[in-house]
């Protein structure tokens, strides 16, 4: 299992567009991926679950992946979040 804790840096937090980008990236990997906030843990492959985290700018979340491509998956998702989802 690979885990990584990251901070949400983009202004709007995990709203529709960022959540959609996250789901699309997570969908490219075969491993199980979970996103954990302080309150709950959800699958990264469900947009609805991601939105229900209500992660805002400045919040910390943990990415947890389990499977053959877990390292690549965690790196790809971390990079995406750190890139602020391409927001200016």
């Amino acid at each position, binding site marked *: 299992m690979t885990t990584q804790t990251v901070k949400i*840096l983009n202004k709007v937090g995990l709203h*529709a567009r960022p959540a*959609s980008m996250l789901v699309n990236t997570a969908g490219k990997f075969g491993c199980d991926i979970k996103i954990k906030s302080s309150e709950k843990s959800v699958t990264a492959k*469900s947009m*609805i679950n991601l*939105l*229900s985290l*209500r992660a805002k700018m400045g919040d910390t979340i943990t990415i947890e992946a389990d499977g053959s491509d877990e390292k690549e998956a965690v790196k790809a998702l971390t990079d995406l979040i750190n890139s602020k989802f391409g927001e200016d």
Partner: protein
Amino acid sequence: METFNGTGVSKGYAIGTAYVIEPCEKKSAAHTAGNSCEEAERLKGAVELSKRQVKDIAQKASRSLDGKNAGIIESQINFLDDPAFVGQAFTLIKGKNISAETAVSHVADSLYAAFSHIDDDYIKERAADIKDIGDRILKNLAGEKSGIDFENMPENTVLFAHDLKPSDTAQIDKSKVSAFVTEAGGRTSHTAILAKAFGIAAVVGCKGMLGNVKTGDKVITDGVSGTVLINPDEKELSKYTRISEKFKTENAKNTAAAKRAVYTKAGKRITVAANIGTINDLKTAISNGAEGVGLFRTEFLYMDRSDMPSEEEQFEVYKKAAQMLDGRPLTIRTLDIGGDKSLPYLNLPKESNPFLGLRAIRLCLKDTGIFKPQLRAILRASAFGNIQIMFPMISSLGELSEAKGVLESCKAELRRRGEAFDSCIKTGMMVEIPSAAIMADSFAGHVDFFSIGTNDLTQYTLAADRLNENVSELYNPMNPAVLKLIQMTINAAHAASIPCCMCGELASDEKAAAVLLGYGLDEFSVSPGAITETKSNLLKKASAGQ
């Protein structure tokens, strides 16, 4: 005539014909469940069809809308793959042996209810997307065509709906629809965002109007007050025809005015510049007719990150901004952090009086490791456009000469490195501390321009924290003491033949314009959204007075 009230979320007036989008009737009862494999297959087919439809709509939208709005629609495709939505419906079909329709309705309804209760307005609005997708799958299961008859809509159509769904609005013909009215939704709803992007009127949260309006009714939509009139009488019609015409002329006038230059009666040119924080702000500023940037708040480059932005990173941003301005001046204010704005990675000590503490230029002079990379970045960018440097929070001549000394050492370093920069770069200071305003005549000989920051000048002069609502009555930039300091600053600038700008809130205050023009202010720098209004106001006042 019937009147309904909601929230006006996009300014404008529309007198037109109603088109009512009926809510989708649930068809779950019409179909009795077959065996669970059959039902799963039916659902699979309906979901695939829905995906193709949404993709098609998203593509159309990306041609007529900006990318962000098209993105909202595209994100609906994710719902169609979502284990918590469609996945859950499949599970229900298998486990409970129910029809595909019942399963989809059940999941969509419970998700809709869950999202409606989230206390985040933006996420709450996504409930509309969920309902939209649920309705679409249900329609496809029933085999009916989805969509609204946009083809045969008359001009000046006002769309009425419980809530406008992104897939509905994506196909809207802008030349035919003149307003939106919905029963649901708030200021951040899809309806509000889209109406603003289209520049048409919109009223949301207009409860109880469905059922009282039918397609073909004559309606008036007032996007300013949030009033909707159905089958209005002659009196209201003529009143709103007048208001609407006036609004259109005002709008056209302001936009046209933004392209004209402001001259006083004595023939002096007054410029209207923009206060920006990001490249996006600059885009808006330029399209609104900014004649330059009077204040580039560089703090935003330093915020929301875990380390300092490098010289290279800053250079790229300043260079891009200078190039976008194409010769018009770009006034870059050096880092103004501290006070109410802190940076976690600087580890600044907690102060009991942050506004009177280590902030802005004081911090930069204390730690030139922060100051120098920024100055070098600004200097290097000055080779690519018309850049001016501005120091914030100067309170004494000693500080000013110290700051200028650091700037000179940065110039020397760049010369050693062989990097190009504008060796005549203009250097100015903010006048926002009373001591600087009082001694403005002494400062004027040492800088190329002044810029008055009225927000801080007011709170320091009146000793009233502008963020403290208990003393907000005392915080008044039109207080005679503050005005006197402003006048002294402008007079001192002109006596030394340097220009004086104002980049505080007061610059966009309609009531202050005549006074400031009277004092001889040379430049008004305002937020990008306030440029057209400020300019049209100045055009009126300048020709009437001085």
